[in-house]
């Protein structure tokens, strides 16, 4: 799903991501952890094809990035800090827009189904401006899932999702293991994400300092691994 070799990205002189190698196979869910400024979000944005690596090789869903980024984007679902929806459009209009951008078939039914899943069906015709933060982020979850992506890239998803949205996301991540989707979850909540991930990758100063499978470990043990890695 993802093969990264020697990825580098710099902001001016400072290397935010400094020679990262990462492999992701179908069904694998990786928790990407690290202190603030460790390079997690930058790495995630590179995987999402939003920023170009300054150097290194990156293949996402079988497509070389950045040269064939557009082909890779068809299979990427990206959940950011911001919901990435228009506040002055309704929930349905936002999903219609993204459905058309991704060329989703049977769009009307898909939208209704997803709005039902995220518990927003009754608010389908309301503008997002009237939504709470949690509701907007649930709509963002529906937006991310709309085109049935094979690679989920999530930037601290539990930080802004409400309980309903968090549970739905956990269900999706659990389902991903069985249906061959892969996920990268940037997180500070290592213990929580440990329950729905198979592996932890820890970044420090833009470099990978821990890359270990965590299936079989309980969440507190994963937490201890993480704390040792960033110490």
């Amino acid at each position: 799903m993802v093969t990264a070799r020697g990825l580098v990205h710099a902001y001016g002189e400072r290397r935010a991501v400094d020679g990262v190698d990462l492999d992701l196979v179908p069904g694998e869910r990786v928790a990407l952890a690290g202190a603030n400024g460790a390079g997690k979000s930058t790495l995630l944005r590179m995987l999402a094809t939003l920023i170009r690596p300054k150097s290194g090789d990156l293949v996402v869903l079988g497509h070389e990035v950045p040269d064939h980024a557009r082909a890779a984007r068809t299979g990427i679902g990206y959940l950011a800090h911001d919901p990435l929806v228009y506040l002055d459009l309704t929930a349905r209009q936002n999903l219609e827009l993204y459905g058309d951008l991704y060329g989703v078939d049977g769009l009307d039914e898909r939208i209704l189904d997803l709005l039902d899943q995220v518990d927003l069906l009754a608010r389908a015709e309301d503008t997002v401006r009237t939504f709470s933060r949690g509701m907007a982020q649930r709509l963002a979850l529906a937006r991310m899932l709309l085109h049935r992506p094979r690679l989920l890239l999530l930037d601290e998803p539990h930080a802004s999702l409400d309980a309903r949205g968090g549970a739905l996301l956990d269900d999706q991540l659990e389902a991903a293991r069985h249906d061959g989707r892969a996920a990268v979850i940037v997180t500070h909540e290592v213990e929580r994400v440990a329950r729905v991930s198979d592996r932890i990758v820890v970044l420090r100063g833009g470099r990978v300092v821990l890359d270990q499978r965590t299936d079989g470990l309980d969440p507190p043990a994963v937490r201890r691994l993480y704390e040792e890695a960033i110490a």
Partner: protein
Amino acid sequence: MRRRQLTALVRKDLRLELRTRETIVAMVLFAIVMLAILQFGFGTRDDDLTRFTGGLMWVTLAFTAVLGVGRSYVAEREQRVLDGLLVSPVPRVVLLGAKAIAIFLYMTAVEIIVIPLVGIFFVKGPYWDSIGWIAIAALLANLCIALSGTLFSGLALFTRARDLILPVLFLPALVPVVIAGAGATHAVVGGAHDMSEWRGYCLFLAAYAILFALVSIATYDAVFDD
């Protein structure tokens, strides 16, 4: 697929504008105020401004275009939606085309009000029989404004001083449009009916639009992906 994406993006911009009415209303009000200022500034002694009509109209429309183009990515920027568009498999040239169509429609809406007002404010003599010729020149000029404006607003989008950068980049690019638009208007206003001159200016506007279309297609990927 591209047509579906283009239609969706244009529909999105029009829906946002219909709901918020922030861009077209601001452009129309700005243009009317500017026409009034020009009228008071130049026509205080009941002077005949007919021969300056083209210049006054196109200077007004150029500054109005800067205002409209400056607002073209406001929703994406302020509501932080741009990443959502960029992570989708939309060719960057489709993003360009959709924004250009929206700007074209905004300018056309403004001109539906401004062009008749220009006749009322500045012209002594025949005007209404030439309004169709002015409208054709305006549509061609709108193409130039939309294509160049989209390119420059895309460039300015990623800079910190975008409100300063955009006029600095965009206004010089509008100088040929103002010259040709004013020339085409002058050729048909106030009883003049120099169709040869009008045609020449219109051909220039068409060529300028094609030039910017080619430049935009060649560079727009780099604007968003680099």
